[in-house]
């Protein structure tokens, strides 16, 4: 039973990580590429780490919870690194695809 839960979590996590990387390759401009890694990959990692937590709790003596630390860390830092990257991209005036709406909402740097 536990093996089934671990397998499902692992497969789901792996597919989310893969979806994040597919988004990284497939999307036409930088701002759209950013969505894959910041969201899908983070959730995928959280699922993988949960699977690992259940695995080590069931196979080894005692309860193993330190994977929560990595999940927490990734959940906290993913938006911040995403924010830094989009800031750098706006500063470098990267092109966004033509049908992007509201492009004049971006204000000029100081």
């Amino acid at each position, binding site marked *: 039973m536990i*093996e089934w839960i*671990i*397998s499902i979590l*692992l*497969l789901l*996590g*792996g*597919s989310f*990580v*893969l979806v*994040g*990387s*597919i988004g*990284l*390759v497939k999307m036409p401009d*930088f701002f759209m*590429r*950013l969505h894959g*890694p910041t969201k899908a*990959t*983070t959730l*995928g*990692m959280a699922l*993988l*780490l949960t*699977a*690992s937590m259940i*695995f*080590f709790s069931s*196979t*080894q003596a005692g309860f*193993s919870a*330190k*994977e929560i*630390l*990595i999940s927490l*860390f*990734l959940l906290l*830092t993913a938006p*911040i*690194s995403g924010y*830094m*990257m989009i*800031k*750098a*991209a706006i*500063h*470098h005036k*990267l092109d966004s695809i033509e049908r992007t709406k509201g492009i004049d909402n971006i204000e000029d740097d100081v």
Partner: protein
Amino acid sequence: MLETVILIVFAMIGLSLLLNVWRLLVGPSVPDRILALDTMYINTIALIILYGMSMGTALYFEAALLIAMLGFVSTVAVCKYLLRGDIIE
């Protein structure tokens, strides 16, 4: 069954690492490359955790935590450099 699943997930992560490398090489801009590198860090953590699971040891956990921290700090540092031309002003 678990061994097979772990192998499949290994393949998935490996494939996503390859996709990241493609984006890292193609670019076209510097932020794109940083993004690819950042995603590679996170995927490497996944690889290490999976390897630990297939070996049945929790020893690799600290390595994963270290990579997570170094990856975050280096991403922020490179972005800061791109933004201001300096890391610590």
